């Protein structure tokens, strides 16, 4: 299941105070959110760059194909950043219009 090791078993000694419990819940929450975000990104890059770079899978990956995957990944991440910026600024505008 987990590609990046086990993020769940962080506390062998049970934290006692309320603040400790809160901190460990928040930490686990953020870890899982980050993991989920990374997993989704990998999944989408894999899908799109496989489509773009490996039209006819051969018996091994050529250097041209792996170069393409690397460029494709760079492009995808840049596009992700533009989407994120544009989407969030648009959300802000819509919110202002509603108010």
């Amino acid at each position, binding site marked *: 299941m987990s590609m990046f090791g086990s993020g769940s078993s962080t506390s062998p000694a*049970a*934290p*006692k*105070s*309320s*603040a400790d*419990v*809160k901190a*460990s*819940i*928040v930490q686990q*929450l*953020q870890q899982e*959110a980050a993991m*989920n*975000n990374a997993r*989704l*990104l990998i999944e*989408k890059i894999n*899908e*799109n760059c496989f*489509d*773009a*770079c490996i039209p006819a899978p051969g018996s091994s990956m050529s250097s041209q194909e792996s170069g*393409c995957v*690397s*460029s*494709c*990944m*760079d*492009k*995808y991440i*840049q*596009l*992700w950043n*533009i*989407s*994120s910026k*544009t*989407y*969030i600024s*648009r*959300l802000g505008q*819509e919110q202002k219009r509603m108010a």
Partner: protein
Amino acid sequence: MDPQTQMDISNLSEADKKDLSQILQNESQKTTIQQSVHQLSDICFKKCIAGRPITSGALDRSEEACAENCVQRWMDTQTSIITKLQNMRG
């Protein structure tokens, strides 16, 4: 949830419970936005990048503009669908 964690939760003060619920709400909102960005990136990559051979690792100007327009027009589409549905109901 293992019993250990459940025991821990009962140690939470009321103030921390309230705090946590707020944090949870914020995280949940963040996740929703992130998922939309993933979905939009997927859609806009297919519209703006796919179909032509990938020759460099950088977006060119037209690809950048396409990505931005793609997100904006996708949201226009969403808005106009909602407006139309509201009109149909009213």
